[in-house]
């Protein structure tokens, strides 16, 4: 079976948990920006967490299914419509052949997910079905969807869970204010004390310059220590000899606007990174719409690992709440 794409929306791509092991040649991990929402969508339709979904950005697609299908829409709050009739989010929906799925206006966040029983069945490239648009690999022909595409759906391979919907308590919130936990390090010694103070105590707002590669923030700015630059690094004090970029790391070119690198980020470059978002909070960052007020809270690496365990436990409990083995 397949989804017939009548209107692709703004930027709809196939994503899964992403590909690792190729960052050393500049191929980013890709994958769903909000992994938690995407995986819960898969859980609702009886898929494995590793199955591929459609990631929709702001304006979702209009699609028609050519066969009966079981779907669930998770992620950012949005009006879901089947043949024009409103339907609940975070709930399993039954589509009949010829039904049209469409969306209204997004009411927070940036991305929502269409999970379908059987998963989106595009070829696996370097271990993943995720789209890496810049490199033109993975997903549907290596690009975002276009009108007229027939997106293949796989056959059901798991049991549907007992529950029909994700309980409220396990649905993430899409607030206009966030507190994001970071571990200081990498090149933070190159910031002035006042610069560090601003990073951690200032209020930062997500600018409209935010996509799968990274999110740019506006705020009080930071200062870089003046110094004689090392050979090969470039003249600005925020420059370094080009190095690998940690996913989630924060760079502040020129000291004005911090950028959090996300799942499609370039794998390296010449801007100093000063901290890294903990892995447990990367989904939270992915949910930040432009204008979201953000404070960065420094935690230790040990605390980051505790938060990582807590996130894994939350996922287990969400699965159990659906009647699935955690």
């Amino acid at each position, binding site marked *: 079976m397949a989804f017939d794409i009548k209107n692709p929306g703004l930027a709809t791509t196939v994503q899964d948990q992403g590909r690792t092991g190729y960052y*050393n040649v500049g191929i980013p991990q890709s994958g769903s920006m909000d992994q938690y929402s995407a995986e819960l969508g898969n859980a609702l339709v009886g898929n494995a967490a590793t199955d591929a979904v459609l990631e929709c950005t702001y304006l979702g697609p209009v699609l028609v299914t050519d066969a009966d299908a079981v779907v669930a829409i998770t992620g950012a709050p949005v009006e879901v419509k089947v043949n024009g009739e409103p339907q609940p989010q975070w709930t399993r929906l039954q589509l009949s052949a010829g039904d049209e799925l469409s969306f209204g206006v997004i009411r927070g966040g940036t991305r929502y997910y269409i999970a379908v029983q059987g998963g989106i069945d595009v070829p696996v490239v370097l271990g993943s079905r995720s789209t890496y648009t810049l490199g033109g690999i993975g997903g549907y022909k290596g690009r975002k969807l276009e009108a007229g595409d027939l997106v293949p759906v796989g056959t059901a391979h798991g049991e549907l869970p007992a529950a029909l919907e994700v309980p409220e308590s396990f649905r993430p919130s899409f607030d206009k204010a966030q507190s994001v936990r970071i571990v200081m*390090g990498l090149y933070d010694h190159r910031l002035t004390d006042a610069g560090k103070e601003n990073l951690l105590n200032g209020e930062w707002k997500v600018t409209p310059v935010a996509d799968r590669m990274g999110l740019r923030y506006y705020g009080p700015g930071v200062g870089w220590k003046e110094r004689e630059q*090392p050979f090969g*690094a470039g003249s600005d004090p925020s420059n370094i000899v080009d190095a690998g970029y940690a996913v989630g790391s924060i760079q502040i070119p020129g000291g004005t606007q911090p950028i959090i690198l996300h799942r499609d980020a370039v*794998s390296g470059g*010449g801007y100093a990174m000063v901290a*890294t978002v903990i892995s447990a909070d990367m989904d939270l960052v992915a949910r930040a719409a432009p204008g979201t007020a953000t404070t960065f809270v420094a935690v230790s690496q040990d605390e980051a*690992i505790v938060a990582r365990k807590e996130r894994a436990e939350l996922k287990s409990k969400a699965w159990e709440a659906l009647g699935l083995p955690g």
Partner: protein
Amino acid sequence: MTVSSPDLKEARYTWGADEFLFVEVDESMSLAANFKVMSIARKLSDAGLPGVVDICPANASLLVRFDPDVLPPSSLESTVRGIERELQNHNQQTLETRIIEVPVWYDDPFTAEVAQRFREGFHQEPDGTDLDYAAKVNGLKDAAEFIRRHHEQPWLVSMVGFVAGLPFLFQLVEREQQLQVPKYLSPRTDTPKLTVGHGGCFAAIYSVRGAGGYQMFGVAAAPIFDPAQSLADFKDFMVFFRPGDIVKFKPVTEEEYNAIQAQVEDGTYRYRQVPVTFDASKALSDPQAYNQELMEALNGI
């Protein structure tokens, strides 16, 4: 001189939260630093540590992604420190690699067209070309002189990354001979595919079309990233370059460029390349003579 010591201090270890270890071998770029990075990366890869997700050697630093659920940060750090100490004692100086000839159409119309669109507010000297500017800041007579200096000595692939398969290249000459050019004042939103660029002391070949901040000097004639893996050079992997590869640029005319394009089209193009053992101590002690030796290997095929 030796490569790993005594010129290089102990590396600086720091963390990218719970999944990344960052090892800064040196703040400055040098062949010795790059060689040490590559050696650590290779030995860490050979160690086959469970929980290591990705080993990304860069110009003068190393980024390691790991799964802390499998590999505690302290274990990873102690392993890498152990490797670093071992290198300090053994001073391994050779690298089994290959030298590759990369045909380049310098001063081409594709990069010229894009450069035209990004002058005022982007470029240091909006009235001139990137090549003229590069010649001037390097104190050379003209663009032709700069182009000659660009391709007469080989380069080392010191890092692969940024976007899929993009090589950063470091010229194998004394520091005072290095070509250095500032990046654009503000990055462009467009760079032609296969642009041969330059920023700071690094050359780059843009594997795909997209944003870029390096000065643009020409276009490489054949692909370096081939997702369809249609050419023989990409049979094993869609990315051509590996850290440690040695590149000799070869200037080609428009006619030669078109001939290569035709070979790429019909799937017959092969890069001229030959295996070599790169000896960093020789490269550091007498670069010119050693480069001749390397290039003779290439000319021998």
